[in-house]
């Protein structure tokens, strides 16, 4: 299908400078600096309360920062309201107008233009149909939103946002209210949709899988600040701290001590170099980045609690006395130890982070 690109030439780059926002005594955002390049698909990822939705709403003009500035294409638009910014916003719960048909919803943005700029009714209808075709809902223009499934409503919301030729597309938890299967489908669809229309887009999510799978770059946030910005690979493999490491994938976290260039776990010197570190540290590794060691290997001793099949491999969970959470290791199928047996876990790829604070360990 041929895709019209009415956005060509208007697609914006975004620059946020020292954005801060308080709600009463709560600091929702603290000195946020962020850039999105033209045509980029950016994910704001973080736990609830991290400020990601507030940041999105500030970019949209639905919320205003206490401090800092927002630039589109180098132009300061901090003081413009949502209508003046010409953005498309897709709400978490779609916010479709219940009393209007799907086509009327999509055409709404055009029908509220000032009389001079308003296209004739027929043109609005045609544009709505065109957009519904684009989101593959061409036959449903006459339905009411209540008669659609969640995934269909989401796409109607998207079509409605696109109808006003936005310079930028913002999506708040776009898959949050959908069931797991539809989520996955819509995720792929949204990514390929973005590639076709090429609109600069930012979406908010608390689901790391979603962020890593859809976005060009991921912005990991916590407590109103940015922890790390990077491509999905950078974020996953080169997390800057234990929080990011833990948040973007499954993680085992083991407290160790770094001394004499090595990580030491309860007196055992591990085969893990720790040149740059000294003192207490946290050894982080993913379940698929470890193996079971032979007797005498330098590793972490643990006791198997459960063994379950998992995507072609076996997931072993093993506990270490004194640690709150069991460690998880994925191993190839075959001869494996049963529950109650002692094993040695040897991380093959890992990250070592200095222990920063008590709060960090709790998180």
């Amino acid at each position, binding site marked *: 299908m041929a895709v019209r690109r009415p956005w060509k030439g208007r697609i914006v780059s975004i620059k946020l400078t020292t954005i801060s926002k308080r709600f009463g005594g709560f600091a929702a955002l603290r000195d946020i600096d962020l850039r999105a390049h033209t045509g980029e698909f950016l994910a704001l990822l973080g736990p609830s309360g991290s400020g990601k939705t507030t940041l999105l709403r500030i970019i*949209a003009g*639905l919320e205003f920062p206490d401090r800092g500035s927002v630039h589109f294409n180098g132009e300061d638009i901090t003081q413009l*309201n*949502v*209508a003046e910014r*010409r*953005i*498309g*916003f897709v*709400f978490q*719960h779609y*916010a*479709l*107008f*219940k*009393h209007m048909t799907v086509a009327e919803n999509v055409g*709404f*943005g055009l029908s*509220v*233009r000032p009389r001079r700029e308003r296209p004739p009714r027929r043109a609005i209808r045609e544009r709505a149909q065109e957009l519904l075709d684009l989101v593959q809902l061409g036959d449903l223009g006459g339905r*009411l939103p*209540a008669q659609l499934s969640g995934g269909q409503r989401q796409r109607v919301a998207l079509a*409605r*946002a696109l*109808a*006003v030729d936005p310079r930028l597309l913002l999506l708040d938890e776009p898959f949050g209210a959908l069931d797991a299967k539809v989520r996955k489908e819509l995720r792929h669809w949204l990514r390929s949709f973005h590639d076709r229309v090429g609109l600069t887009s930012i979406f908010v999510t608390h689901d790391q899988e979603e962020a890593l799978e859809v976005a060009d770059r991921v912005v990991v946030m916590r407590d109103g600040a940015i922890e790390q910005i990077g491509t999905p690979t950078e974020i996953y493999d080169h997390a800057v701290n234990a929080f990011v490491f833990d948040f973007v994938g499954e993680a085992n976290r083991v407290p160790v001590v770094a001394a004499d260039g090595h990580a030491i776990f309860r007196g055992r010197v591990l085969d893990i170099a720790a040149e740059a570190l000294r003192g207490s540290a946290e050894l982080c590794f993913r379940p698929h980045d470890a193996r079971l060691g032979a007797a005498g290997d330098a590793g972490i001793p643990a006791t198997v609690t459960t063994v379950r099949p998992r995507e072609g491999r076996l997931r072993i969970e093993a506990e270490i006395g004194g640690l709150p959470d069991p460690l998880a290791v994925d191993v190839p199928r075959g001869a494996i130890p049963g529950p109650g047996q002692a094993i040695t876990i040897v991380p093959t790829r890992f990250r070592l982070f200095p222990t920063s604070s008590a709060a960090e360990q709790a998180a």
Partner: protein
Amino acid sequence: MLALRTSRLNRGLLLAVALGFLALFLVAPLAAVFAEALAKGLGAYAAALVEPDALAAIRLTLLVAAISVPLNVAFGLAASWAIAKFEFPGKSALITLIDLPFSVSPVVSGLIYVLLFGAQGWFGPWLTAHDVEIVFAVPGIVLATIFITFPFVARELIPLMVEQARDDEEAALSLGATGWQTFRRVTLPNIRWGLLYGVLLCNARAMGEFGAVSVVSGHIRGKTNTMPLHVEILYNEYNFVAAFAVASLLALLALVTLTLKSLLEWRYGVHGKAGS
């Protein structure tokens, strides 16, 4: 077995009590109104309604409702919008104040206006000097009615608007709609059934109010008599047929209101379920 039989017995008993109560206190009086009104035949009934003082009372009642209902719709919309969508100091005080007319005796509500605008009242001398009549005239009746009926629309809308998230309005704004367009095309359709319901209740009360209006009206026949006041005067003059004839109009109004109200509740219920 025994439990089942008792529960069946209980149910029958409860039903009998409820229906008996209904018949005695609602249906019987309603029937009595129409029976008395028609006691001397349709001719006398019609004559009582087209008599000049009765017509004046009907006109005044309609006028009062025509002024107070739109004003209270405007007030109710503004108040519920403010309460539902914004945080401001004194919000809970405003909510409490809206309920005030419900908790104050209508007679007191009427007296307030006599106290303020009567000849001996606070603004009395000034009003007399400028030749403005409020108490014992139509403006007083309108003011008292507005006061009595102002909670109806607001009370109906506040919970409805609080429940509806701001998403719909923000969506409309993000699509470039102005504040007015957002209100007219998004907010209003979302609350229309509740609003109609509130208007209906407000109107019924505006036309039927007796206490507060009685205090400020002065009961001048053909001038400051509303329908409820006219009924009372006729009744006190032992003109039962005329009194009940006018009363039957008020009863009809009540029946129409009830029917519309049930219809709305039915629509409203269906609508509520289809939404969200």
